[in-house]
């Protein structure tokens, strides 16, 4: 077994590093209901980690714990070697964690471009006064960040809709814009909550390609929740399986596919 800091190279030449985040004995309760029961797993730098499981297993809650929206009653989140204290979500975002949402959470009153520009918030430094007077610094910074955003727009091939109000876009494009917004933040860890939900085969292929490209080009660590088993098995390096708030499987896609507990709870008859 690899230790915490050792990295390795995958079969197709990607570089996976040491552990960047560790979830240790996480328990999350809502009133009397235990959504997550004593779960531990780790995430390595540069890998694509999937969280799968039947509906209601607590996957989105797990993502919310990672992004700081929920604070677990027990257990720790250890990020880059340090225990992360309970903090407001915006502070977690500043530490380099970005995410997309299961039900699209775009800013419907703004255009695509503006939405993606909000992703740059944590990188924009100009103060209130310089913005108010639109001093040289503010205008310059706006142009700089616009350039970075345009790169993301090129990468995700959404140039043609950059000025369109987000509310007018079809579902598939909205998902892509949400991904763009998360990417614009240049995150260390990217959380994707069911990025392929509601898509047809073609759209799923496009989205999978984008996810792989992000990981390949920028080395971004990706944690994703997904129901499509084909996607999960093809994309991810390692998988965590949850059921009723508990962890019932953890390992490479092959290991998990052949795990009896996982088959009983979720996969059904094992594929050949």
């Amino acid at each position, binding site marked *: 077994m690899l230790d915490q800091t050792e990295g390795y190279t995958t079969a197709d030449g990607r570089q996976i590093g040491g552990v960047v985040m560790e979830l240790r004995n996480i328990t999350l309760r809502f009133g009397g209901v235990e959504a997550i029961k004593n779960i531990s797993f780790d995430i390595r730098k540069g890998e694509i980690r999937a969280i799968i499981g039947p509906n209601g297993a607590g996957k989105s809650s797990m993502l*919310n714990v990672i992004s700081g*929206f929920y604070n677990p009653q027990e257990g720790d989140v250890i990020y880059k070697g340090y225990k992360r204290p309970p903090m407001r979500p915006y502070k977690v975002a500043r530490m380099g964690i970005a995410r997309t*949402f299961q039900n699209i*959470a775009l800013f419907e009153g703004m255009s695509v471009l503006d939405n993606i520009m909000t992703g740059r918030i944590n990188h924009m430094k100009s103060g209130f006064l310089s913005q108010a007077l639109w001093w040289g610094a503010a205008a310059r910074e706006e142009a700089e960040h616009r350039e970075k955003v345009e790169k993301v727009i090129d990468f995700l091939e959404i140039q043609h809709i950059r000025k369109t109000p987000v509310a007018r876009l079809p579902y598939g494009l909205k998902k892509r814009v949400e991904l763009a917004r998360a990417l614009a933040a240049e995150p260390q860890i990217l959380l994707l909550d069911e990025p392929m939900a509601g898509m047809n085969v073609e759209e799923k292929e496009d989205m999978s390609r984008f996810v792989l490209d992000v990981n390949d080009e920028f080395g971004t660590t990706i944690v994703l929740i997904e129901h499509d088993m084909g996607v999960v098995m093809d994309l991810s390096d390692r998988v965590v399986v949850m059921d009723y708030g508990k962890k019932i499987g953890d390992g490479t896609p092959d290991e998990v596919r052949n795990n009896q507990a996982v088959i009983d709870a979720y996969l059904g008859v094992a594929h050949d």
Partner: protein
Amino acid sequence: MPLEILQAIEAAINGLSTGIMYALVALGFVLIFKASGIFNFAQGVMALFAALTLVGLQSGQVPFAHIINAIFGTSVHHFGWNVPTILAIPLTILVMVAFAWAVERVVLKHLVNQEPIILFMATIGLAFFLEGLGDIMWGAEVKRLDVGIPQGGNLWFEENTAWLGGGNPDFFGFYIDTLSLVALLIASVLVTGLVIFSQYSKQGRALRAVADDHQAALSVGISLRFIWVLTWSIAGIVALVAGIIWGSKSGVQFSLSLIALKALPVLILGGFTSIPGAIVGGLIIGVGEKLFDFYMQPIIGGATENWFAYMLALVFLLFRPQGLFGEKIIERV
């Protein structure tokens, strides 16, 4: 008992009377909010409009008299007949139902999927529209409203509380207007009726279904439009009751519509979705205002009722936003 305590209690009783008035207006809010999630800012103006219509019908006023006269140079104001109260009230109810139907068709139907803040602003527009309409239809002067509710200081109450003074020559027993007692009675009957309706009748259940989830309610065959017309009609009738009681006490005038604003703190205290909460909230605000004024006037001056209710509501919002009886709101991502 020492005189000061007696005076405080009298202020409190005074407050109870005002509180019932607030509660009656708040009741209309709760109904509409429960059924549609809309905060109907126009509720207070509906009470004013209902009262104006009642008085107008009773005294045989020609509706839109002023504007007709202005356009045609005529000078008509009254038809010359008086409609007896027993007929005028049902007629007014019909007008309020027609109003409810019109509101649903013209306003609500088109704003179904909008956010609550847009709907709230639409009801502000509705309030202003209705106020202007009421003024043009029936005239804006202060009017006396009399439907035969006994009024004036209640002697029985006064005589029977005199003993609390312990022989103090300055204390004659508590003054309470019989109207307030009647109002309390009417309010209790109304609340009980509405709770029974909401919990046990088929339409009441449909109302609660609509309040929970429009789509789901539609899918089981409930007509959203009918429920809304029904709700606004009932709210209109409640507004009429509030208008009658308030109008009997202080005359029918514009200030009636300002009570809509006071209803907001009442709802925050009682909870936006609780029918009994509206009463409790109203009473607490009514009593609270008077007591606060009683004790604080020597220190900071009078007229504190202008803002006390809102400050109290603010405190509640910060520490217990669902009020005393409302449902807790949890937000999920």
